[in-house]
């Protein structure tokens, strides 16, 4: 297998996801199958081919720097799981 349990554990950490041991095993297998499948792209010669980030020739669209109304603070905070004093509240970051 190309994908190892260690790979899955590393990627899970990067993605901020946690898995049980049996889930890691199942994921390793399923991910390995998918990665094996997408590796068929290795056969394609892409020398001198530019990547397509946007299918249409649109780039850096600018607008006038004018002040416009934005959402009310209270409306933005209504969905916050925890808030205080008009701010999002999170666990302590700096000890």
């Amino acid at each position: 297998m190309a994908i190892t349990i260690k790979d899955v554990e590393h990627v899970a950490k990067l993605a901020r996801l946690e898995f049980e041991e049996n889930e890691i095993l199942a994921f390793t297998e399923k991910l390995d199958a998918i990665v094996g499948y997408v590796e068929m792209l290795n056969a394609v010669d892409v020398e001198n081919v530019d990547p397509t980030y946007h299918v249409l020739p649109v780039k850096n669209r600018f607008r006038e720097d004018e002040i416009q109304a934005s959402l009310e603070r209270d409306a933005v905070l209504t969905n916050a799981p925890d808030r205080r004093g008009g701010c999002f509240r999170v666990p302590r970051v700096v000890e």
Partner: protein
Amino acid sequence: MKNKMYEWTLHEARQALRDGQVTSVALTEAIFERIEAVEPKIDAFITLLKEEALESARAADAAFARGEDLGDLHGVPIAIKDNMCTTGIPTTCASKMLENFRPPYDGTVVAKLKAAGAVIVGKTNLDEFAMGSSTENSAFKVTRNPWNTDYVPGGSSGGSAASVSAGAAYASLGSDTGGSIRQPASLCGLVGLKPTYGLVSRYGLVAFASSLDQIGPFTKDVEDCAIMMNAIAGYDVKDGTSIQQEKPDYKAALIDDVKGLRIGLPKEFFGEGIAQEVKDAVHAAAKIYETLGATVEEVSIPNAGYALPIYYIIASSECSSNLARFDGVRYGFRAPEFEDFNDLFAKTRTQGFGEEVKRRIMLGTYALSSGYYDAYYNKAMKVRTLLKQDFDRAFESVDVLLTPTSPTVAFKIGEKTDNPLEMYMSDICTVPINIAGVPAMSLPCGFSEGLPIGMQLIGKHFDEKTILRAAYAYEQHTGYAQQRPSL
């Protein structure tokens, strides 16, 4: 015209309103009566908005009484996929992560429907965050196919497809990243259009894969599709990828004449894995086009076979990046217990996302991680260029391409849930279109054992009008658009 109000097309309902034959309130009540009858069998909706809908209907009737008319959608009941933001109304993406999320704003398409006087009846079920091909990945319910409730409606916009097919709405909005409008339209016997990338604003659509996502309509026939496109297409300053151009009148494209139209059949879309009855139905449609005066020739999209791997790298990579925002801080689910900041993120995401979403985040994170970016993401973006060039070349000699939409008719619920790769194959004919960014429509072209078969018409960038014309002409000479499931 059909006897029962819920069986009407959108334009039939519209005509009845205009003639004073029905009120919007009567129409809306008829739709909710239908919803109450069929919803226990198909589970198309996550949220129903009966009171709000009746209020909009009363407002529409009052406007009509004053002699006001906002156009073709005024007073007409419409459903919206539950990944488009609606002010104050739950927008869940069929995920535990957003179960209690009530957006503080309307997505642009929602605002446009409201401005057009449409009556919004509810928010429809989907595969979680639009990731899936069967609507079995919803955190809340499994939607069923109105033609046979043992079968899937397709996905990810399965609720939007099932609702219109069952007569629970006159039209609906879906989103399509790799086939999520066209494949369920095919499986439920509807017209479904994925517009050109950039034609319809994505502002307020919860992002899955930003370079592929596009919003489009589900309707019972081609005329209704044109009506919906007139309402939702157009430039939006709030979507940096939306395109500024003159807006066409899509209804003007409804011409029953395909004389001289050049239709290409890309041979790669008729290969292994496509069921014989599906190939036969699409070839029979090509014959009908010839008798109507179009020319049909075989063409080639040589890199079509790479579409699925390109798609799974690009879509997963962009999804892993887009879904990083779900961290339990600003909105959505937060895990009840955690130790510190990082643990808050990890516990929230682990408990909030379902299995398929996690699988794609993992694949995308892997593809974008240090040392693999060039091998996977950048490589896929380059092969994407080759595939897009294939379409450009094909459109030098033909006006539209005709292919199957789904390789098979609907499959049974539970049949493919354990095998993601097999599930991904459902999108083999639809993902190349998102990769190239061109528009494509699925429309009904036959039946196999009581389940609908769909064909796909693909056009050049921003040439929805030619697709609509070709689809309209076909529909005028066949009876598939008149078929309704007996539910």
